[in-house]
């Protein structure tokens, strides 16, 4: 069974978290993400969970990581300025392989910028914003239904790969209301438990260690310092660092195909749009209004790790067009991977590209 609601994207995100079994939310309000916290504040206590309003975003993600180590599914939600403040502890979560979900309802930046307008300006930040090398997962919903579905998925990926996982939404999707179907229950995949006799940071072939949350009797030491498989600091041995960090990166990057989630329309096309988040809807509109097999669309639901192989699914592509609500961010990744011309179609200020705008670009590029 399921129920159907007319709901805001942010509320759907909160519902998705609750459905996924999230039982801890630590947050600090910021436009345009606040409704997620507000919904959690209302709903979590009744679901036997904990909502806590932390003193800032640094504390929010810290509390979330702490809660995650008790075995709880835990989440926070924020927007640009708060996301920037989380950068240090995001690196800590990556280094300590803490499964948790961080929602960023993107708004116009840099700085305080445009608090109430949409953007996709934090897409490279969520990939490279903390110091050092690491890899995580970033998901980009384009509808209220996906705010629900992909939040659920975010928790599963976070648990499975033991990485902080980002739901990179934006003011448009976060604030719009649409119909959403909420199932009575969703399947949940928790992290693989740490096997008897295994070390807490030793990994097998999949490069992902088993998880022994606090209270399991395994006396796990968790540190953001470079550590060995026991979890003990080893900060001067180049090999220890190399081994650890390469594994952390590889566990995500080598699972790219497994993690990938995208849609392909017209694989034979010569002109190919590449999108994620709400600009995908404008492209879909254009393609509905102007049906044409020579126009293709690769729509990413997961941007990081970047599924470069998906670009190869358009063997006839002559040009890639990439509308983004920023000055051209993920387009940089596309440019690395294809030999064809890649056209960035940046738009900032808070509004989606209109269908007419994209039609004009289309005409200019074929």
């Amino acid at each position, binding site marked *: 069974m399921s129920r*159907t*609601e*007319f709901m805001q994207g942010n509320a759907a995100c909160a519902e998705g978290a609750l459905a996924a079994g999230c039982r801890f939310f630590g947050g600090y309000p910021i*436009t*345009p993400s606040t409704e997620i916290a507000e919904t959690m504040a209302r709903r979590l206590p009744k679901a036997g969970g904990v909502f806590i309003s932390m003193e800032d975003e640094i504390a929010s993600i810290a509390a979330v990581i702490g809660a995650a180590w008790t075995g709880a599914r835990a989440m926070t939600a924020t927007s640009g300025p708060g996301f920037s403040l989380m950068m240090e502890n995001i690196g800590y979560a990556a280094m300590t392989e803490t499964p948790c979900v961080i929602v960023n309802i993107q708004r116009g930046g840099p700085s305080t910028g445009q*608090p*109430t307008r949409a953007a996709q300006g934090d897409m490279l930040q969520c990939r490279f914003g903390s110091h050092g090398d690491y890899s995580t997962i970033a998901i980009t919903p384009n509808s209220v239904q996906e705010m629900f579905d992909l939040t659920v998925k975010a928790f599963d990926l976070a648990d499975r790969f033991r990485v902080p996982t980002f739901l990179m939404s934006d*003011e*448009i999707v976060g*604030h*719009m*209301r*649409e*119909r959403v179907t909420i199932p009575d229950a969703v399947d949940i995949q928790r992290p693989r438990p740490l096997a008897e006799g295994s070390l807490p940071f030793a990994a097998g072939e999949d490069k992902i260690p088993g998880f022994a949350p606090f209270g399991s009797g395994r006396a796990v030491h968790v540190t953001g310092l470079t550590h060995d498989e026991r979890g003990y600091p080893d900060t001067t041995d180049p090999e220890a660092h190399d081994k650890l960090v390469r594994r952390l990166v590889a566990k995500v990057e080598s699972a790219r195909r497994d993690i990938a989630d995208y849609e392909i329309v017209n694989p034979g096309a010569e002109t190919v749009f590449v999108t994620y988040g*709400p600009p995908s*809807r*404008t492209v*879909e*509109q254009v393609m*509905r209004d102007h049906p044409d097999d020579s126009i293709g669309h690769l729509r990413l639901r997961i941007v990081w790790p970047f599924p470069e192989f998906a670009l190869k699914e358009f063997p006839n592509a002559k040009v890639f067009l990439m509308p983004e609500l920023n000055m051209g961010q993920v387009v940089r990744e596309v440019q690395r991977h294809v030999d064809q011309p890649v056209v960035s179609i940046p738009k900032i200020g808070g*509004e*989606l590209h*209109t*269908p007419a705008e994209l039609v004009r670009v289309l005409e200019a590029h074929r």
Partner: protein
Amino acid sequence: MRHEIRFSGYGGQGIILSAVILGRAAALYDNKYAVQTQVYGPEARGGASMGQVVIDDEPILYPEVARPDIYVIMSQQGFEKYGARAGEDAVMLIDADLVRSRPGCRCYEIPATSEAKGALGREIVANIVMIGALVTATGVVSREAIERAVLDSVPKGTEELNLKALKRGFELGERA
């Protein structure tokens, strides 16, 4: 058929709620698709508040409102900021008592606030009167759908009052 409906008025009139109710009616009870959006931020505070709904029989892809074809305007500032540039082929419902200007397009004057204050006895339901009028004047959603959506959305204990307001709106809209 894609409809783009824009509501505007001042804070406290329930402008956003009106948009949500309309979207809800379409999306949940009329088997249509709807996307509701609104204006946020400090600018939306003292001044004019604004909410919009796109309604379509097909799934709504491009979700933004480009050119509303229906307006519901409940304050002079709202008119100036969000209604004055209405296209000629649009339809506008105006709370006659609160808006002095008139648009270039077709315009229905609905005395929603005075009806709410007067016959209904509670100014707060003026927006429901407007919604009722909107439905009968434009047919953008069905009466049944809007009734259910209103009932979903209003505080317990006020259902009857709101239904009365809605019905009064239906009448005003029919007559318009």
